[in-house]
Every structure is written in C-alpha cells, then in structure tokens.
C-alpha cells in the first residue's frame, strides 16, 4: 500500500462532511456587505410601485380619484381594482383555500390594506403620488375581538362570501366563521375528564405577533414582451410554489414564468405567501413593459404582510391525584384576520395544532378550533415553527404547569411522570401522529442536572422567604419546558399546498474533474444551506464539501420543490440530497467495477473511493471515477455522472428538547432579567454543530422577543398599534442573555441520515420556558397563569393584583 495515502479518517476529515463545524460559505459575502438582496437589484428602465393603503380598519370605499397623482410628472399609472377586474385579478387565491383582495373593491377590511398601486419613475415620485390619490371612505364598525366574531350582532366583514355556507374546510357557522377543525376522540375525552380526580382549566392566549424579518418583502417583476416570459425576483420562501400560483392566477403558462429568490434577509414564515405587491408589480410590468420594483417599508411589513399566532386556547387537563395525566381538551379561537391566508398544508386548516399533547403519553385528547375573520391583516404563518406547533407546544407546556400548581407538584416531576417512554417509540398519539423517535427522560435528566435544578429550587425558597421578610423586592422564577416539534412536512399522502405534494428535491451534477454542483427545491434565508447540504453530499459521495456548489432559488434551474419553512429543508430536501448522492455512488460503483475489472459486489465504499474487498491497494477514488464517467466508453453505462432525487418523506420528524430558564423579577418596575437560559436540543444526527448552535441562538432570541414583548394589537376602531420598531420588540445584544446550549442525539429512524431539523425548535421551546419562568416567580402567591407578552407593565400588573406593589 502507498505509504503516502492518508488514513480513511484523515480523508474523512478533509471532506468536512457530517458532523463538521465547517464555517459557513455564505458568510464571506454577507460579512463584506456583498450579499445580493432584492433591493440591490437594478434593471435598466426599472420603475417603482408603491401602495395607497387603507387608513381605516373597516370602511366602505365611496370613491377613488387618481387625477392629481397621474398629473404628477414621473407617474406612469395608478392601478385600482377597476383595472384588475377585467384581468380577473381583483382577488387572488390564498394558500388556505380562501381568496384575498389584491386591491380593495367596495370595502377595506383592515388598516393598511392595499387600495391602489402607484407606478412611477422612482420611489420618491411614487411616494409623493401615493399622497395625491384621494380615497373617500365611509367608516364601518370594526371587529377586532375574535371572540365577538361568532356573535350574531357582529358586523359582517366578508360581503364577497357572506352567503357561502361551505368554506374550504367544511361548513361555516356564520358570515365571519371560516372553519371548524376537530381532532381526537370527543367522547372518550369527555368521559376521561368527567372521571378525572383533578381537572385544571385555563385560557391560554398566544398574542398576535409578526416574524419581522430584517429585510421586508419585495420583488422586481419583469415581463419580456418579445419572448413573452415573465421573470420575478423576490423574497420568496417557496419559489416554485409561487411560480405555479402565478401561472394559475395570470394564465401565463408555467414555462414562461421564472421565479428567482436572491439572498433573503430572514423569512421566518413571513415570506411564504403571495402578496398583493407581487401581483401588482407583475400587472404593472405587463402594462408598462418595464421592470417594476416593489419594496415594503417596515411599517407596511408589520401591518400588512403575514402575522403569526393569535390563538386563544381554552384548555382542560385531567389527571389522577398523584399526577398521571388522563385527558386533555382544547377549544381554540383562531383569529385569521380579514382573509384566510394561513400557510398550512391544505388538509390542516389549523396546521399541526393537534400535536397539542406534546411530549406526554395522554390517553384521551380532543381539540376543536374555530377560525374567524376580523378586521386585521391576514396571515397566520408559522413564525419560525412548523404550522401552529408553537401554539400547541405553548398550550400544553402552560397547561402542565397549571396542573402542577393544582396538584402542588413540581413541574419537572410532573413532566417526567407523563413522558412518552423511550420504549414506546414509534408512538402514536391520541390525535394520530406517529412520533418517530425520542428519549425524553434522558434529555430531561441531563438538563436538570446541568442547571442543578434542586439547587435552584432551594435558592428560590430562600428568595421567597427573604422577599416575605422585606429584604428584597425581586422574585426568582424557574421555568421548565419540554417540547416535541413536528417538522419536515411532509408525506405527499396527507401534505400538500394547493394540491402540490410537499416532497422536495435535489439534482447533482458531478463535473469531470471531481467537483460538483447540487441544486435543491428549497431556499435558504439565513439557514446556511450552501454549507450544510454540501456536507451531506460530501459524506455521501466522497467529494470535499468545499468542492460542491449548492444552488437554490431559481425555478429555471432548480428542481421542483416546496421551499423552506416549517424546518422542512433538512428533513425533506436534505434527504433528497442524500438519496441523490446514493444514486451517484451507485453509478460510480459500476464504473469502478469496470475499471478495476471486478464484480460490483466485490467493491466496498470507503470515505471517498471504492476499494476491492480484500485488496486495499486496488481502488478508484470518486475523482478518478468522475473523470472516467466523462472520458471512457463503458459498455452498458451512459456517459456522465448526474442524479436527481425527489424525496417523499414517509413521516414527519420529531425533534425535541428540554429548556430551562431562570428569571429575576423586579416587582416594582416589572423588569424581568433572564439570569440563565439552558437549551438542550435533540435534532437527531447533527450535520454542522456550529450552524445548529447559531440556529439555536437565533431562535431563542426570537423566543425572548415574543415572550417578553412582541405584539401587534388593534384598538377598537381597528387601528393597528405598535407596528414600528419603536414599539415592536426586536432585542439587541443588550437585551439578549447568554444562551447555554447542549444536546443529545436520537436519530430519526426513517430519515436517510437520521437528521430531524433544528432551525425552529428554539422558538417553539423557548417561549414556553420563559413564560413558565415568569409565571413560576409568582406561583407561591397563588398565580395560575398570566398572559404573554411579559413586558414590564403586564408583569407589574400581575404583581399589583397579587398585592405586591404597595
């Protein structure tokens, strides 16, 4: 054997494959300010579009006068609903089976709704022209309380569908009702609750918030009148789906549409849907023959494009006196705003909310969700989570704590008592989900030990006594949360969006000199796909990650895929990459067999080469095989080395984790300090530990933002409150505590490399841990539950109600 040959493990290390904390290849351009975002795009002759938006939450439009705007030099067009009607573009389909007004017709239904689209030579003229469009309104009473939406005297919002008794998801009970969605066994749950020794009840609200990516939504639409091809560059989390939807809406054949996502500055669900801005930019480009750019500003982003959450969940949880949970029931009101524009798989109008039994073995469970219309912006997207799993996880994690108080039991102990046990996996929940793998007990034990949980409770006891004696005005709280995510949507048999199955794809081309390009149907918005997908492939095909280019986001070149959200990229596209890599390897094996003059079966794969079994000096490396694929005529084998895989996952993956948060609350000011935050994540096989850590840091920081402040509210007239960064809480490094991260590894049994997805877990688990800690600080004084966000004044109000503020 050649003495110079590095050992297999040395060669493996060089590949920077699975498990390597290789640096992000994206960062070279981002850290130098050389990213290419949508607003960096400049095309010759490009025009700018800007919206006239409703100033009212609910009003009839009595007239629109565009004369003054059109008279302004540099204004090319003012598009209103009258211009869209002949094109049948006044409404567009939403991802949830509803329709949404592209531009308002007779009525506006939320403040900030798009009323007219001004097209001008530059964005400054466009902004001036927006001021000149005169819209007259007749104000109507606004409906902002979702609980009132179902009342008979509530104003009717959607006149366009008021007589429809059947919606996309079954019967509608009244004009403001969208759907009722149920899961689980109502009768068995009723019986179990009746028989339970203890039943705890609580209303758990998860406030309306907004993903607020640093880059707002936007696009450049360009209709090439010569070849009839429409190209749209934009902030799209699902470019292929946008292409298909654009084709269905505009009747432009799909091969004449190209959708490109350039660098995206964060999405978090906000960039999944199709917005009026895209449609208007396309129409404007068709009308003017010039490229048209539309970019939201911050206030528009926060007040008009997709919000998240707004779930109001009435819970009942039953248990034996010694803490064995016997039943769980939830009735939720889901505030969807003026149009149902949720981005959920078609058959799941409440997303995967029925994962609401969490990490616990609960024999009976039932859930009913009513979706309703209100005079608020549409949306209901999964803000860094898989479809409504954050709401579900928050619900059960609060309910467990509420039950723990009722039972006078330690919340960690109650969780331990009810965990699904390791040997129960694969586990089928009461609402029918099949959890793929888990070892909750081990994760929880590790977390409790890491923070010295017993020590924390002892310290807390001393703190409470000192508080009682008047020696301190601070209360300490310990929040324990355990979550199970459900990600990687999803199996085509039950997951589709607008009829498009939620598979994903990867296409690989190996170049003659042994480097490669891989294209996927997903699109990174900061997740680092170009880094991690190359690592998956490096381990599969033995080509160093640095020699593999990963490309996404251009529908003319990438294979069809459903995009990136719901932590689906690694579970679905990552699996497609592994499978495509295996196809490459299979062909390479045949080439190697030919070259080495042995039977296929006499070869074995070793890191980056095929070796003849029993004769280690006889081998062919992937680089040699790649060259052979292009320069030799091999009988029975086509030239070239390429593969494509479309992966339809057999199941979702179920990442989990144990989070513990310690807070100190100043009862006089409501200021809550996070003293310590420990996050243990189990996302199965870890592709790049450094990227995982980065994702966990980012997700936890968003969890902090939501739990402690993020909130979009409306006053009773329907005026949106707090839709600017003056009020909307975006934590900086100053507000963000130190995040301690940890892990266990329980691979997914059905995923080709055992990976589960991690980007969203910290948002799911983090919110509960922080909220539980705040609630825990007051638990000894009889507090059962106080609602998020835990900003200063709400925390102070809690203290005040408990008589602590003198």
């Amino acid at each position, binding site marked *: 054997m050649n003495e110079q040959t590095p050992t297999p493990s040395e060669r493996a290390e060089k590949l920077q494959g699975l498990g390597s904390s290789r640096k992000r290849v994206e960062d070279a351009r981002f850290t130098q300010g050389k990213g290419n975002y949508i607003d960096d795009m400049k095309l010759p002759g490009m025009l700018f579009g800007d919206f006239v938006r409703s100033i009212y939450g609910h009003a009839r439009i009595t007239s629109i006068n565009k004369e003054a705007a059109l008279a302004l030099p540099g204004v090319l067009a003012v598009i209103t609903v009258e211009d869209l009607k002949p094109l049948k573009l006044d409404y567009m389909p939403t991802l949830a089976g509803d329709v949404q007004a592209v531009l308002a017709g007779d009525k506006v239904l939320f403040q900030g709704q798009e009323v007219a689209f001004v097209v001008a030579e530059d964005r400054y003229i466009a902004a001036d022209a927006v*001021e000149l469009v005169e819209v007259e309104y007749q104000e109507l009473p606004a409906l902002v309380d979702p609980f009132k939406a179902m009342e008979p005297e509530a104003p009717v919002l959607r006149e366009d569908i008021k007589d429809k008794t059947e919606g996309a998801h079954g019967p509608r009970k009244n004009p403001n009702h969208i759907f009722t969605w149920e899961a689980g066994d109502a009768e068995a749950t009723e019986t179990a609750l009746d028989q339970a020794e203890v039943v705890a009840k609580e209303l758990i609200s998860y406030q309306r918030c907004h993903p607020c990516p640093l880059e707002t939504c936007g696009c450049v639409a360009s209709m090439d009148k010569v070849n009839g091809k429409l190209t749209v560059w934009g902030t799209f989390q699902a470019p292929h789906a946008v292409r298909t939807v654009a084709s269905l809406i505009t009747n432009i054949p799909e091969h004449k549409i190209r959708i490109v996502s350039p660098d995206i500055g964060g999405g978090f669900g906000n960039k999944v849907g199709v917005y009026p801005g895209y449609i208007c930019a396309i129409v404007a480009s068709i009308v003017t023959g010039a490229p048209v750019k539309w970019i939201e500003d911050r206030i528009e982003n926060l007040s008009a494009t997709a919000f998240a959450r707004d779930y109001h969940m009435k819970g009942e949880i039953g248990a034996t006196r010694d803490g064995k949970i016997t039943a769980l029931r939830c009735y939720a009101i889901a505030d969807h705003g003026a149009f149902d524009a949720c981005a959920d798989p078609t058959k799941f109008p409440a997303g995967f909310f029925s994962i609401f039994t969490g990490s616990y073995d609960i024999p009976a469970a039932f859930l009913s969700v009513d979706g309703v219309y209100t005079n608020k912006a549409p949306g209901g997207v999964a803000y860094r989570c898989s479809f409504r799993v954050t709401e579900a996880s928050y619900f059960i994690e609060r309910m467990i704590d509420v039950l723990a108080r009722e039972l006078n039991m330690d919340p960690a102990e109650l969780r331990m008592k009810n965990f699904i046990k390791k040997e129960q996996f694969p586990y089928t929940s009461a609402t029918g989900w099949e959890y793929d793998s888990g070892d909750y007990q081990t994760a929880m034990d590790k977390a409790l030990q890491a923070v010295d949980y017993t020590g924390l409770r002892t310290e807390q006891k001393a703190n409470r006594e000192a508080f009682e004696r008047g020696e301190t005005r601070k209360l300490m709280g310990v929040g324990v949360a355990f979550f199970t995510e459900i990600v990687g949507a999803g199996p085509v048999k039950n997951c589709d969006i607008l009829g498009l199955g939620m598979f994903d794809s990867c296409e690989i081309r190996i170049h003659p000199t042994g480097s490669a390009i891989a294209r996927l149907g997903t699109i990174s918005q900061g997740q680092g796909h170009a880094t991690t997908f190359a690592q998956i492939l490096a381990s599969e095909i033995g080509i160093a990650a640095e020699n593999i280019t990963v490309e996404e986001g251009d529908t003319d070149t990438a294979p069809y895929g459903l995009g990136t959200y719901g932590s689906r990229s690694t579970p679905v596209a990552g699996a497609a990459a592994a499978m495509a890599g295996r196809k490459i390897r299979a062909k390479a094996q045949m080439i190697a067999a030919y070259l080495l003059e042995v039977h296929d079966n006499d070869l074995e794969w070793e890191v980056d080469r095929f070796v003849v079994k029993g004769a280690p000096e006889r081998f062919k490396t992937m680089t040699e095989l790649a060259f052979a694929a292009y320069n030799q005529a091999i009988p029975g084998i086509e030239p070239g080395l390429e593969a494509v895989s479309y992966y339809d996952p057999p199941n979702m993956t179920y990442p989990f984790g144990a989070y513990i948060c310690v807070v100190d609350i100043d009862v006089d*000011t409501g200021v809550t300090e996070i003293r310590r935050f420990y996050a243990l994540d189990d996302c199965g096989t870890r592709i790049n530990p450094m990227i995982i850590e980065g994702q966990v840091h980012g997700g936890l920081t968003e969890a902090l933002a939501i739990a402690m402040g993020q909130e979009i*509210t409306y006053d009773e007239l329907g005026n949106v*409150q707090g839709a600017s960064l003056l009020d909307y809480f975006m934590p*900086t490094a100053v507000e963000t505590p130190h995040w301690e991260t940890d892990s266990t590894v329980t691979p997914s049994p059905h995923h080709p490399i055992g990976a589960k997805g991690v980007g969203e877990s910290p948002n799911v688990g983090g919110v509960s841990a922080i909220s539980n800690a705040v609630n825990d600080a007051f638990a000894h004084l009889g507090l059962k539950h106080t609602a998020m966000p835990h900003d200063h*004044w709400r925390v102070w109000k809690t203290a005040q109600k408990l008589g602590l503020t003198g």
Partner: protein
Amino acid sequence: MIPGQFDYHRPASVSQAIGLLAEFGENARIVAGGHSLIPMMKLRMATPDHLVDIQDIPELKGVREDAGALVIGALVTQTELIASELLAEKCPILRETALQIADPQVRNAGTIGGNVANGDPGNDMPAVMQALAATYDIAGPNGARQVAARDFYEAAFLTALKDGEILTSIRIAAPAAGHGYAYQKQKRKIGDYATAAAAVILEMSVGTCSSASLALTNVGDTPLYAAAASQALVGTALDETAIGNAVAAAKDITDPAADSRGPKDFRTYVAGVMVKRAIETARSRATA
C-alpha cells in the same frame, strides 16, 4: 417612509441661518442631527419645504466655561457630551443621561440643541436641564435672549422658541463640588424613550439635604420640574419618610399617556420608583 420634497440650505453662520429662516418663514425648519426631525419627515408628520442645516456653523460647537458657567454649544452631539472631561468632572449627570439615550449611532448624530429644542416629552435632556436650572441662549431676528429650561416647555412639541429663532447654546451654573446626582430611566429596550425617568441634583451638608432639584421625563406632555418633591427633601436627612414624601409629590404632578409602554397607573408608579431610586443614588454619591 420617504419624506416629501424639500430644499436644503447650509448656512455658515448664525446670522445667515436667521436670514434663511426669516426668508422662508414657517415653511422652513432647522435640522441639526436630524435624528428626531428626519423620522418625522419620513412619516410625513413633518413636511417642511426648506431645511436649514446648521451643522456648518462654528459658533454652535464646543463646550466651554464662561464665568463659572458651563456653556454647551447647540451642536454638541451626545457622543461629544459623553466624551467631555470637563462635563464629566463638573456636571456628571449629563454623561450619565447621554449614555441612556438611544444607541451609539443615534448619539453620534443627535445634538444637545436638537434634543432640548425638539419639545418631545420623550427626550431625556430637557428634564435634566430643568433639574440643573439651565438657561437656553436663543438668537433671532430681534437679537438674543435667554429662557430658563423650567419656563421653556409649553406642551408637546410646543416651546418658547418663536419662528425664526435658533437655540445657540445651553448655560448651566455648575453644581457645587460634591453634589449628588442621578438620572434614573426605565425603558423597554435600547433605543427606547422612557417609560418614566427622573433627574435629581442635590447637595448634602452634615447629613442634611441642603438643596434638591428633581425633574421628570415622559410622564406628562412636557418635562416636569417637580418643585414640591424637591422641597420635600430639603432640610431632611433623606430618610425613608422624606423620600416617600418626595415620591408622593412627584407622582402627584404626573399625567402620563397610556401607550404601549403601559397604562397610566403603571407609568405613574414607575415614575415614583425612578424618583426614589434616583434620590437614593444621588444621596450615595453626595460627598458632604
């Protein structure tokens, strides 16, 4: 978030600036650091036709001592205020306050003149100026005049400044050596205006408070000089009762708006907490 059209002027002297303001009348606005005005213009809540940028006027720059008074030019930025050793030594509450304004980027641009002339009850410096009994030097078409900070603020965004006038500098009689001071501010996050804040300047003489001056930020439609609260401290040992009286008197004059920082009762309560903590800090810092 794009401002309306405007013309831009950049005078090189106070008299030129006054000339421009006179020429364009109420359609003109002074711009200094621009970090209050430009956001308002982007929201089109302010739509001036003419911006008179005073950045290039040397007379408005620098910190100096003049006959025992500290004179701070209107164009001194919050960053320069923080960096000034003279101010740190003679009047440290200014550095303490400036450090609680926004973030370094805003402080690099924002000026003390703009901060006090703006008239936004959320600005932090006006209350501090009231606590320090500062006066503002004002130049206008009819010559120069002075207005006490305590008399300057009339309502939100309404001040004693008349059309065509420029605030040229701020004059502060340096507090006695060994004085106690504190600016206590509660905010939701970096870059936020106060939920409530309190400025305190006091002097101690053998265990007794010999003078005290208290003012409040963002709990009314102007900064509030808390005369009764100040009075409640003088002649006391700053014991719990005295502080309690001052807190009660301070809370009495507040009238905060309910906003996303919280309802009225909360903001009033926090104002009291800020007053209490500011007095306690000031007391601990006073050396006599």
